[in-house]
């Protein structure tokens, strides 16, 4: 198993959580979300984002509106929905649970 792949796998799982986190703070364009994730070193390739955004939108967690732009065609401006906020709360919970679980396994292994 190669490490890059494993890391990518871990990241992918958390990415949906991160998107919702970002949008819960404020509405954003797809490119804004990408930049935040890049700054946080969460994603390397942008392409990963788009399917996720679309699927979350189709699941009702996000919605968007078209914003006119001076530089070209209109762009999608994303916003989190009520369902999305609910889902986010659940993810927050499971994230915390996960951290606890992993921490406990780490502690257990290192104590040997």
């Amino acid at each position, binding site marked *: 198993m190669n490490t890059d792949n494993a890391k*990518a796998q871990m990241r992918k799982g958390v990415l949906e959580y991160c998107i919702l986190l970002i949008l819960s703070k404020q509405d954003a364009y797809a490119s804004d979300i990408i930049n935040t994730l890049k700054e946080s070193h969460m994603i390397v*390739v942008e*392409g990963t984002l788009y399917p996720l955004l679309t699927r979350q939108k189709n699941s009702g967690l996000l919605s968007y509106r078209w914003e006119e732009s001076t*530089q*070209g*065609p209109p*762009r999608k401006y994303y916003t989190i929905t009520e369902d999305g906020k609910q889902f986010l709360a659940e993810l927050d919970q499971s994230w915390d649970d996960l951290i606890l679980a992993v921490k406990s396994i780490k502690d257990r292994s290192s104590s040997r």
Partner: protein
Amino acid sequence: MKKAIKINLGGLIFHIDEDAYDRLKQYISALMSQFGNNAEAREIVSDIESRIAELFQERLNAGKQVINLSDVEEVISIMGKPNEYDTEPSQAEEAEYSQEYDRTISKRRFYRDIDNSVLGGVCSGLGAYFGIDPVIFRILFVIFLFIWGAALPIYIILWIALPAARTAAQKLEMHGEPVNISNIEKKVKEEYEQVKKNFKRIDPEKKARNFFESFLHIIVTILKGIFKIIAVIIGGVFIITGIVFIAVFMALLFGKPELSGIPFSDFNFMLGQFIGTGMHGLALALVIIMCAIPVLAVLYLGLKLIFKFKTIDRYFWISATVLWIGSIVAFVILTVSVVKDVSEDSFKTTSFEIETTTHPHITLIANSQQNLKQAHSFFSNDEEDEYLVDDNDNIFGRAHLIIEKSMDSTANVVIERKSRGSSYNNANENAQAIQYDVFQRDSLIVIDPYFMLKPNSKWRAQELKVTIYIPKGIKISIDKNLEDILKDANVDGTYWMHELPGKSWIMTDKGLSELK
């Protein structure tokens, strides 16, 4: 200089190099096959395209107006390879597998490298596939050619069977750059068929992929080559013929008989003999058209076969043909009278007696007064039937001299004038109009070598025969200057006519006998 394509990406227009376009299309196609064919997939791809458009925009400026291949590769690496898009956990393993796959397999295919070709790019293609300098293959080919001889047919077979790498995608494949469609192998192959199909339309050579068809194609090409050679040869013949015709025609027209090889050397004059003065110019023009058009047509065809320039408008040919036929018809109408004018013939005879009692030995001599130095021939079948015309348009014909044995004891000169005409009377008149003289001066019989037509009379194939009847016992000498017109003589023995002048003869029962 490269070909650029205009694309609409995410609602924006971009100019993009052809090879960059191929790469981008490949990438997007891969995405589409990755995500499937539902509404959600289309939305995803559309968002991605918009993002790519934004990235492209960042790379363009006043100095750079076209997206190139490296831009596309950059953007692809930013966006990520298709396998990295997957978030479905079930496909995670496949993604890992195909990433491995991507790293180890360089997708290479056998193509002919026509950009680097010496003959057909076979050796270059071999070199590209194996990563070896094509020169090696060329050397091998030449060696095998000499040793084995079968290298050539093998080369030709390869030439037929291997397609040429024309598109950017194919060229990449030929050199073995990993083409980043790293998914399941089957999906990759499908993707490729898709891309190739689009280019098949533009690439006619692909149509002959079927080996048999390719073989037929080669045969047809060879036959075409042979036909081309034949066409060039025929073209050359036509050109030469055309030039010869023009030369002959010019010779006729301007009265240089030596060059034409045709009896009526002064065509212009001949024409004038039959056609009235008013029509003469028109007739001449018609003749020129009649002859020029076919000659020019032949010449033109010859040039076209060899040099292959664009055909002149079809209407031009039609009007040329109509003009030609018209000129023939007009000429025929104009000259119908010609036939009429020579349909009848007639002759008139005059004679006088030669005084031989005081001159038992007569000498035939040509009239040296007749001075025809200025005249030129306008019609001659050979030396005998020569017709001349001088500067004053007087027509002369050569007389025919015949020496016969007289039936009685008198010597006679009989002059027979013959001519043609539109009717018997007309022919008679024409015959009468012939001016010719023979007279006796002591023992000399002075004979005109040429007869002349009365001024302003037309040539109607006039002939003149002068017969000298010699009775038995009379001696005769013939001057050398009559050599040209002496046609026949009743001679005892076998002699050429030109042997007779310059000697003396005596008429006997059996004909002229030489006096020694």
